[in-house]
């Protein structure tokens, strides 16, 4: 299908959407950072206009015949050319709308959440930087552009997590997030180079149409898997899933925007973006499916024992991303994207609600929140419950419909294992979500007196309402988005008419049953009158510890870093480096021999040793030439 060139009106709207947040970043960062009010205004204005543009683009192209493409050559070297531009098709328009909407709502919410913070100007600058990178990522017309903004999104995530300088763990978490996602990007970058060299073309349209014909099956699978490494890093999939819960150290609106609704979803978006490319390689799709399934199960178990409200949602985000990848891996393009859409709405809502509580009570522990009177905050409590129910897949909320469509795809696979895994995951999701909700609704009477933490409860009423209004907007979406599934499906499946995914009547009942059992177990343990509010896992301490310590994944990484990198390589290579090992050797010499000559030998001998190793290497090389 040949793309059309956009007319001037569309071009203007698209460039406005892409350019304004960058403008806001520069203005705020370099000029108005000191004046908080002006910074907020600029940043908000520059996210409101893209929001309107994105919606008008989406509605204006609801039945678009061909994608719109606009490109300029960015650089060319040898035979390879890299372009910069935008590609508007149903998928990117949908994602663009999601990103701009949530970004705008979060910016409004932050007015209240960050009220009184001295670094608010800088915070808004970074939010704008993020919005710009994310928008440019979504509309990218080629993989290289996508990769560049992919990295920039990671960079702004690092800056936003590290935003709270005074929290040491925040800066550590930012570093971890950055390095871990970069580890995945390593594969992504290699994949891009492989494609560039063998296809000579990095455009997404070209990749989707020609890759299967021009690349051999082996090369196709290899490059698809390499690119998937980037997805694993960015979407926090197994085995790189531990950075996301740590990233929750950043401010809550940032968690809502980056670490649930948009940035981490970029991984899933990438797979859907080049979905025909993935479809050409069944092996790669099988890996996507398996990784998604493992991640979903692992992180659901972790969420079952967390006491920190943001941690619960973080694990849940990881597991839902895994679920989306399962949908995509099973061949359900629409199912994955639909779940991505609804998830963006209800997960952002969950985080923003939690932010209100955290802001008010000054703690992240939802048991403590509940005892401090979380029920008193009516509007956030209701929104939290609606979003939680949507996450669990309760009819008629958005989550129910999207989850059903993923389940439908899983049921269509020949191996029933994947459906069982999906249902198991859904049961665990319902259990940990309602565990949290029941605890929040029913404070444990036996506990000590209500605590009043060092929260910001005394803040003005306007701050509260500025935070609640975005919640209501998102709640509306959470409730009604599910009913738009059919329309969305027609929109997204524009070029493959009549490939509707199969529907299984019994499946609806099976999944309702599964969700009900999860909710029921949560009610028994946490919700009913006189419940002990201790999960069944507290009777299995070994298992509980395993889940709480994230299946010891972090310890494994720490061990690798300490022993292999620091302990072995770095030490090995620093043997020559006297300023690092000096103290050790000196002490050793004095202690054992006490002989001055030995000491002086070591001190002056190092240069000889250096020269000796130089000559040795040269000699070895010479020998190599003689022998080969």
């Amino acid at each position, binding site marked *: 299908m040949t793309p059309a060139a956009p007319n001037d009106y569309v071009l203007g709207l698209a460039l406005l959407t892409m350019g304004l947040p960058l403008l806001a970043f520069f203005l705020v960062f370099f000029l108005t950072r000191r004046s908080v009010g002006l910074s907020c205004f600029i940043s908000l204005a520059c996210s409101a206009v893209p929001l309107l543009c994105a919606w008008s683009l989406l509605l204006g192209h609801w039945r678009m015949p061909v994608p719109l493409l606009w490109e300029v050559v960015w650089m060319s070297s*040898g035979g390879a050319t890299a372009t910069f531009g935008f590609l508007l098709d149903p998928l990117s328009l949908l994602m663009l709308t999601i990103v701009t909407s949530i970004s705008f709502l979060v910016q409004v919410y932050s007015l209240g959440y960050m009220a009184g913070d001295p670094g608010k100007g800088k915070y808004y600058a970074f939010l704008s930087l993020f919005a710009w990178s994310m928008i440019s990522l979504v509309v990218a017309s080629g993989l290289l552009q996508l990769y560049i903004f992919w*990295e920039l999104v990671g960079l702004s995530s690092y800056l936003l997590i590290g935003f709270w300088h005074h929290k040491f763990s925040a800066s550590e978490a930012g570093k971890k997030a950055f390095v871990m996602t970069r580890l995945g990007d390593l594969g992504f970058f290699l994949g891009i180079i492989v494609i560039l060299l063998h296809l000579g073309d990095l455009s997404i349209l070209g990749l989707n149409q020609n890759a299967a014909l021009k690349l051999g099956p082996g090369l196709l699978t290899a490059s698809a898997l390499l690119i998937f490494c980037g997805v694993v890093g960015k979407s926090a999939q197994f085995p790189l899933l531990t950075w996301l819960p740590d990233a929750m150290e950043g401010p809550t609106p940032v968690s809502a925007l980056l670490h649930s609704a948009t940035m981490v979803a970029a991984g899933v978006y990438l797979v859907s973006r080049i979905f025909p490319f993935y479809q050409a390689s069944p092996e790669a799709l099988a890996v996507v499916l398996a990784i998604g399934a493992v991640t979903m199960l692992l992180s659901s178990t972790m969420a079952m024992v967390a006491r920190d409200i943001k941690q619960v949602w973080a694990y849940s985000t990881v597991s839902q991303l895994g679920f989306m990848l399962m949908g995509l891996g099973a061949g359900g393009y629409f199912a994955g994207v639909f779940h991505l859409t609804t998830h963006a709405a209800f997960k952002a809502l969950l985080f923003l609600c939690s932010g209100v509580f955290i802001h008010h009570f000054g703690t992240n522990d939802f048991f403590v929140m509940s005892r401090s009177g979380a029920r008193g905050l009516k509007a956030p409590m209701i929104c939290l419950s609606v979003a939680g129910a949507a996450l669990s897949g309760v009819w008629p909320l958005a989550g129910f419909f999207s989850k059903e469509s993923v389940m439908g795809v899983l049921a269509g696979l020949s191996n029933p294992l994947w459906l069982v895994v999906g249902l198991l995951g859904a049961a665990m999701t319902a259990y940990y979500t309602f565990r949290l909700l029941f605890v929040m609704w029913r404070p444990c009477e036996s506990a000590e007196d209500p605590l009043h933490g060092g929260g910001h409860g005394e803040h003005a009423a306007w701050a509260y309402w500025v935070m609640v209004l975005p919640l209501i907007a998102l709640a509306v979406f959470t409730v009604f988005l599910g009913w738009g599934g059919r329309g969305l499906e027609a929109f997204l499946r524009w070029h493959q008419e009549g490939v509707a995914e199969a529907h299984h009547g019994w499946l609806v009942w099976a999944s309702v049953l599964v969700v009900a059992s999860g909710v029921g177990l949560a009610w028994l343990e946490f919700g009913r009158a006189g419940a002990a509010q201790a999960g069944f896992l507290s009777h299995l301490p070994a298992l509980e510890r395993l889940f709480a310590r994230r299946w010891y994944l972090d310890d494994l990484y720490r061990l690798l870093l300490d022993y292999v990198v620091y302990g072995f390589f770095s030490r090995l*290579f620093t043997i020559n480096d006297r300023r690092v090992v000096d103290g050790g050797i000196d002490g050793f010499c004095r202690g054992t021999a006490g002989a001055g000559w030995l000491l002086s030998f070591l001190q002056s001998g190092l240069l000889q040793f250096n020269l000796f190793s*130089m000559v040795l*290497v040269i000699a070895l090389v010479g020998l*190599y*030439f003689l022998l080969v």
Partner: protein
Amino acid sequence: MMAEQLYMFLPESCYLLMAAALFALSLPRRQSHRRIYAWALALSLLGVAGAAAALAARGEMFFTAYRVDLFSQVFKLLLAVATFLVITICGDLAGVEERYHPEFFLFLTTCTLGMMLLISAVELMTIYLSLELSSFSLYLLVPLRRGDNIDVEAGVKYLFIGVTASCVMLFGMSYIFGAVHSTYLSEIMDKLPLWIHQPAAAVGLLLTLSGFFFKLAVFPFHFWAPDVYQGAANQVTAYIATASKAAAVALLIRLTSLTAGTSLYLIDVLMVLCVASMFLGNLVAMVQSDLKRMLAYSSVAHAGYVMMGVLTMTRLGYAASVFYAMAYLVMNFAAFMVVVKVAGEGQDLKIADLAGLHRRAPLMALTLMMALFSLAGIPPTVGFTGKFMVFTAAMEDGRFWLVLVGMINATISLYYYLMVIKAAYLAEPADGQEPLAISASTRALSYALIAGMVYLGVFPQHFLGLAENAVKNIF
């Protein structure tokens, strides 16, 4: 005829003039730093102008031992710019004793002159002599530092390792001469591919390269780097880390092109050195606490990235290496400028000393962050584009594993660069540390460097084209 010759020799003449002027200035008993600094600044600016003006010069001189073409002129311009930049941060040479200031500028000039001659030299003896002219200037510059004896130790170490590398290089040159009976590169280029399968020729070439491995701090010739980076005055380190690396890249490209890629064994060896440099540099940099030492090891790693382009021995690979050398010059200079400005007394900087830099000097912290992100290869900085070009070139040559190793190393390097950024941005300043006074000219320089790093990263096309045209001349 005369005018043409003068035009070809214009950049070198500028630095000869500069050296003479600085020598005259060093004679009076009483000297004022301001006056010498002003002269040096003005003359080095003249040098940049001369190098830029002579960009179009073409021709051969000195019995065809000296060739002026786009390749040499691009590198001369780079060198002139690097020298000018280094001199701009010598406003107060707190790290060097007052009475040595004229000599400091003089040796900086002779070193630049030596490297300019080196870049244009196409005959082995000329290459050797120019190399020694620049090296001896550096041997003298390193121990000029004020204070404890760490400088002397570093100077001695530098001298010994440098002399050994020179010996090895001379030895290698004698092999080449023995094999092809000529010292002219053009003749060697004609005959060497026939002889390359003889061990003598291949070994000879490799040993000849070692002189430049030493300059570039490639494993196993890197031992001087940490000590010299730490022991030399900050400005000298900045010079070694930028200008002298660019010259080394130029010569590595010139000499490896002699084989026309016919020796697979040579490529294997280069690959081993490249991988070893990357791993050694990055892994050891992780445990450093001194900022300049860390940058020294990071320079070892970057030498590895540059080698990756060189060892492909294709036009694309060479162009990528030239571009990387440009990129490295800009980003590394930005990092060292911050080091010089933050270490007001000319002292060594621990990474921990950077704590709270974002409060004490926000612009310096920003410059440092951009420089380090660029070194780590984060888009949209020039470091990313440079790495992208180098990796693409290596991949096009079919070296998947090499690129994988390079990418792993880029990720490792991010880890320790982030430690520095963390200190600068996330730690609070120690009590009693005043905000740094940053002059307007430094401010302008910082903005220019940041803009340069982003501009080169986002719009590399022009410079990439220049690099591609430049390397066309060496084949």
